[in-house]
């Protein structure tokens, strides 16, 4: 080998000459001398991990991932496979965006700060709430952060957090971890036909309730019809009304501010990311009242020394690196780059594209349900509600067997009950839906 980079990290640039000169400058005989590690804890460096060339590494990953089956995913329930325009990849992958750090030196980070400011503005428009942070990890952790916000601002009045009984178990479990350090307890309220059972919720709500959580659309794909009543109930019990949603839903459905929501959480990466095994982007928006209790980073407009418009992280005294144990959250690294992608995707669609996408899926889901309903042994939709993009279907045969057979035919659906499957049209081309109908016919025949 001739190469001076032949061994060691391919990303460390030192030539032998450089290394020698540097050691001389620091007065060390070898790099080993610079390590102040006591012998009793020293390690011999043998992880038994083989080095590979770039090409071999790519082949390795490709061959591993080739073990994933190719199926058409009619899956939703919080994670969606909308088509992401090529523009998003090409621009977000510019290394200035991808490789920069949090914008603690705003003078050399204006581009990212402005993009995040635009992202916040997008969420403000979508929710109608005036404050949106520039990201949490995902919907589940954003829900947890909402509860700790409720704890901070409502802690004299009670400890009950009410969530729908059909909440995704993963969200509930994450929420429970977030409130484990508080005196809050998470309790369920009943759901009727896929949406809030208002009487049940009213029965459950008392002065001990600090937070009521609802989702629109619900995890069963239904659209809530009584959100304003939920908002009124929350207001009357002085509970924080937290609403779960996402940018595509928000572009069409009732505006959270109009139904009295105090906080909106959700996964904003339904725009901007392809399906990515659940990697997300926690949306978090709230009222002005709670500005100084908001978790996460905020970008604000300001001016520079020449009075020109500039952007900067602001209200950082809420954050862990300043306030330590009294911070509004422990979050540091967030999902900024995903927020950038979400803002880009929304910008490519524009408001008309966003509304179109949502409306088209309402129609496509409705059409698909009607077609499935014609199959003997299938009833769809199960719930007598409007649906945004997914719905539950009842199958006479065991749902698990139906899903398994569908998978063999190249289609993935959710199993949500012994005889219930859930089917989502988001991102699935029409001709695939046609083939799905045929596949289900074949399976339940």
């Amino acid at each position, binding site marked *: 080998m001739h190469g001076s980079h032949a061994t060691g*990290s391919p*990303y*460390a640039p030192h030539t032998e000459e450089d290394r020698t000169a540097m050691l001389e400058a620091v007065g*060390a005989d070898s790099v080993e001398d610079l390590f102040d*590690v*006591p012998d009793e*804890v*020293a*390690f011999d460096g*043998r*992880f038994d*991990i*083989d080095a590979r060339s770039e090409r071999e*590494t*790519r082949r390795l*990953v490709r061959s591993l991932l080739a*073990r994933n*089956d190719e199926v058409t995913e009619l899956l939703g329930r919080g994670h969606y496979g909308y088509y992401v325009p090529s523009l998003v990849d090409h*621009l977000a992958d510019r290394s*200035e*965006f991808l*490789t*920069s*750090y*949090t*914008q603690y030196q705003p003078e*050399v980070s*204006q*581009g*990212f700060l*402005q*993009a995040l*400011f635009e992202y*916040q*503005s997008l969420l403000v*428009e979508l929710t109608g709430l005036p404050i949106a942070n520039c990201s949490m*990890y995902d919907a589940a952790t954003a829900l947890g952060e909402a509860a700790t916000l409720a704890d901070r601002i409502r802690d004299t009045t009670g400890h009950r957090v009410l969530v729908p009984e059909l909440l995704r178990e993963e969200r509930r*479990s994450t929420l429970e*971890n*977030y409130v484990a*350090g508080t005196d809050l307890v998470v309790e369920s309220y009943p759901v009727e036909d896929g949406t809030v059972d208002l009487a049940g919720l009213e029965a459950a709500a008392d002065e001990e309730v600090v937070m009521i959580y609802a989702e629109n659309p619900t995890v069963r794909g239904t659209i809530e019809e009584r959100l304003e009543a939920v908002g009124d109930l929350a207001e009357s019990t002085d509970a924080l009304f937290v609403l779960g949603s996402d940018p595509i839903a928000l572009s069409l459905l009732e505006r959270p501010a*109009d139904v009295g929501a105090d906080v909106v959480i959700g996964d904003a990466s339904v725009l901007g990311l392809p399906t*990515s*095994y*659940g*990697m997300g982007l926690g949306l978090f928006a709230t009222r002005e009242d709670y500005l100084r209790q908001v978790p996460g980073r905020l970008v*604000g*407009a*300001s001016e520079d020394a*020449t009075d020109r418009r500039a952007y900067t992280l602001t209200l950082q005294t809420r954050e*862990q690196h300043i306030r330590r144990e009294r911070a509004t*959250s422990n979050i540091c*690294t967030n*999902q*900024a780059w995903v927020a950038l992608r979400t803002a880009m995707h929304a*910008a490519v669609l524009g*408001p008309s594209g966003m509304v179109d996408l949502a409306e088209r899926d309402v*129609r496509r889901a*409705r059409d698909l349900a009607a077609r499935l309903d014609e199959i003997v042994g299938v009833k769809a939709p199960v719930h007598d509600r409007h649906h945004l993009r997914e719905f539950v279907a009842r199958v006479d045969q065991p749902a698990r067997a139906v899903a398994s057979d569908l998978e063999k035919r190249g289609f993935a659906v*959710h199993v949500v009950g012994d005889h219930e499957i859930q089917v989502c049209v988001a991102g699935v081309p029409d001709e695939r839906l046609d083939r799905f109908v045929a596949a289900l016919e074949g399976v339940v025949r």
Partner: protein
Amino acid sequence: GEYEPLLSAKDLTRVEIGGGDGDSGTGDGSPLPDDLTRNSLELPELSEPELARHYTRLSQMIYGIDSGPYPLGSCTMKYNPKFTEDVAALPSAAVHPDRSEGSVQGNLELLYRLQDYLGRIGGMDAVTLQPPAGAAGEFVGIRVAAAYHEHNGEGHRDEVIVPESAHGTNFATAALGGYDVVSLPSDDEGRVDLEALEAALSENTAALMLTNPNTLGLFERDITEIAELVHDAGGLLYYDGANLNALLGRARPGDMGFDVMHYNVHKTFATPHGGGGPGAGPVGVVDDLAPFLPAPRVRQCEAESTGSEPRYELFEPEHTIGKVHGFHGNWLVLLKAFAYIARLGDEGLADASASAVLNANYLAERIEYDVPYGPFHHEFVASAGEQDAADVAKRMLDYGVHPPTTKWPEIVPEALMTEPTEVESKDTLDRLAAAFNAVAGEDDATLEAAPERTTARRIDQTSAARSPRLSWHHLEDES
């Protein structure tokens, strides 16, 4: 440089919604009744070429790792290998989190292998990949510790000890977990004060959170004794992985007596910082704590027959704390970290740390600012002395380099916390040192006027915080 207008200054289009009867299958109106929809939506409606220019221009107003040295102490701003983006972009990586285990064997095997890699690197017995960031990893550690103590009937332990020089997340995480934070002073040499530690430890101690090397870059030489003290008091020892890049192949937290640790893959394993995130904060634990890890984890199934490919499945640890993320964490980030580790192997990882430590020592030698504590490893904390460290940083921008982290840890007055990482060449370090030294010779007025050569000049933080304008809706009156 020229400013780029907000998207909203280029266009705002209001789309009206409604007019449907809610039953319209194919009609022009809304497919939903009006009482279920909003009335309108007002956002920019621009063409693809306009957007390409907008975001290209924005990108030009950002300093990234491909712009030059980025010596932010504690942040490990490494070069992000381009090929890792390619593997994350593979269409086969784009799967839904609710797919059946049998149909995503590729994902599961890759995650399994990454669990294994990280376990070897940290000297840990079991790893969860779920935490989406370092602070989330800390939270898992704290929750796991809580569950462990609870399980052992030690639920009364309500204190977490944190050195005063620790990362802010340690304090905040312990508090989020419901713990009282006991702050631990440093000794004169910048390390854990053993006497103070002994005094702080009690039957109420749940854990000590420690970074090693610490934020001054110093190895906690008494780590074995520290571990003994903590364990004797019935507490657990938590390793904050932010500084792991100092030790790859030289020492492992597990061997030092740590019970639980997190890894910052966006630091040590070169996944891009993305302007703040996403990262990933896997957590490793010793065997005793494994039953408490978040669910699900990945394991190999029993071999069905000899010679067949191994298969993988998700499982729930016996006493799991449950979930800390809605799905499986930041999958695409984990994928990149796997690729990085698989590329470097033993030699590459060890060389990364060796070169990082050499670089820090060389740079410290070359700059004129005083570096009060040592011997340090991958980072050092210089003092700006009579100068204001924040002003020093602003002025360094004028020399075309990114400044270090400033004013922290507070143990060093006007701290310049500097971590060049292994990717900088000697030439670049010389250029960086020249920037430090040029600023060191300048007067306060110059520093206070800085930066002069950046896109934006010094930005008014006070005004931003006093009257927050957090969306373009707040700016409507202006233009």
